[in-house]
């Protein structure tokens, strides 16, 4: 109950401040929290990233596995995205299989990457109809201070960008040896907004998430295409608000993309 009372007070603060045009942590409405990325932090992962977005922390690892292709795409590899909301990350997260929040998170991150055709699945075919690479993206929330969506999307893209494809010998993976880097055709990123008493906020922190009347995420690419969208939580958006979010997403994701490239030592 104490926890609830504290949050009720914080929600009041969030709304009071917003009425004066201010956010609880002093940011502008369209400002991201500081972003810190540590690319390739894991030795055993084929690609990895540790992302801090304000106090929100997410780690992501990419692993390549061998598997059979789906019958309807015999010459294509596959993608599998999973998200775990670890009890480490929040007093309200529980041990056990992914719940609906984790499922939604994983599927929205998955759609952004898949639909952008960021990965050329044909290049992940080893033997048509028999053997293909499966790209496993596993996301773990380490600290939930709001907007796990964008933190996870940033972590997944960074991990893919530094992922190396294992070497194969006689159809088996050779440990710790790699045949080359995974090449990405597009760099899709999610940008998430919260609506609170008719204000639209970029990158909601936890107090803002608890106050929100609706969440809207849009995945965009560097060539200004939309590749996925998701409206979530209780609340309704006007068309004009959605259009503004899309324009902001194009602009804000460009800056994030730059930070990601710096983290992997590009440009």
């Amino acid at each position, binding site marked *: 109950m104490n926890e609830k009372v504290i949050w009720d007070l914080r929600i009041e603060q969030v709304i009071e401040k917003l009425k004066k045009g201010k956010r609880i942590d002093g940011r502008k409405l369209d400002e991201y929290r500081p972003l810190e990325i540590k690319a390739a932090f894991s030795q055993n992962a084929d690609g990895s990233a540790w992302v801090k977005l304000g106090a929100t922390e997410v780690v992501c690892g990419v692993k390549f596995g061998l598997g059979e292709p789906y019958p309807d795409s015999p010459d294509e590899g596959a993608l599998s995205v999973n998200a775990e909301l670890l009890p480490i990350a929040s007093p309200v997260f529980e041990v056990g299989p992914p719940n*609906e929040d984790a499922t939604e998170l994983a599927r929205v991150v998955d759609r952004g990457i898949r639909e952008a055709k960021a990965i050329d699945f044909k290049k992940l075919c080893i033997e048509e109809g028999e053997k293909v690479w499966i790209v496993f993206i596993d996301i773990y929330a380490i600290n939930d201070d709001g907007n796990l969506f964008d933190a996870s999307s940033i972590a997944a893209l960074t991990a893919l960008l530094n992922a190396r494809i294992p070497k194969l010998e006689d159809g088996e993976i050779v440990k710790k040896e790699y045949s080359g880097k995974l090449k990405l055709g597009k760099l899709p990123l999610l940008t998430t907004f919260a609506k609170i008493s008719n204000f639209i906020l970029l990158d909601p922190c936890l107090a803002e998430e608890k106050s929100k009347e609706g969440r809207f995420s849009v995945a965009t690419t560097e060539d200004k295409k*939309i*590749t996925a969208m998701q409206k979530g939580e209780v609340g309704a958006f006007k068309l004009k608000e959605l259009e503004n979010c899309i324009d902001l997403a194009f602009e804000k994701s460009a800056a994030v993309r730059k930070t990601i490239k710096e983290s992997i030592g590009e440009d």
Partner: protein
Amino acid sequence: MLVSKAKRPDGRKADELREIKIEAGVLNRADGSCYLEWGQNKVVVAVYGPREALPKHIQNPNKALVNYIYRMATFSVPERKNPKPGRREIEISKVCGEALESAIFVERFPNTTIDIFVEILDSNAGTRVAALTAAAVALADAGIPMRDLVSAVSVGRANGEIIVDLTKEEEDAEDAVDIPMAIMPNTQEFVLLQMDGIMSKEEWSKAIAMGQKACQQIYKLQREALRKRYLAAEKE
């Protein structure tokens, strides 16, 4: 706005919906119900509540819980579906429940739950929007106070054309984009919006405008179904 004149695989125009039939109050044990056919899609929905939320610890003293369960029958798809709910069904249940909750006056019914059960009996693309459209009618049939109905449709692109109400064949097109959307038809506010596929903002805006128009047609059918239900009830 230019709507393409090109005919689609099933002969429809770009902005033409498949045939939709809605019947409210079809189940006598449920508090509210609806059966809907939308092209090949067949959906049955039952609503219970507001009723006491159990176990007690899930109760919210400030509002009713909205528990939306979307499931597909094993035989409703070309290959038999595993009866265990998949990730897709779990996600759809979550976002569609949230979409409906946006329209329900949940604060009037503390400590209760409103249970909405949806079963897809036959399918050919657009089942989540068909289910949402039917669920809104079932909620109204149960007499649950709402700000507005919720009307849903999917829009998108296939074979270079921006279209409403995609079929499976169209969803499988090389350039397909699918945008399931739901609005409250009187305020025009969006309560569900998802998308997958690559699109420019201009194409998206065109698709959304066609979807808004289609939702008004669907809203009319929903109201007719409810009207018919109440006229019949009056005679009883």
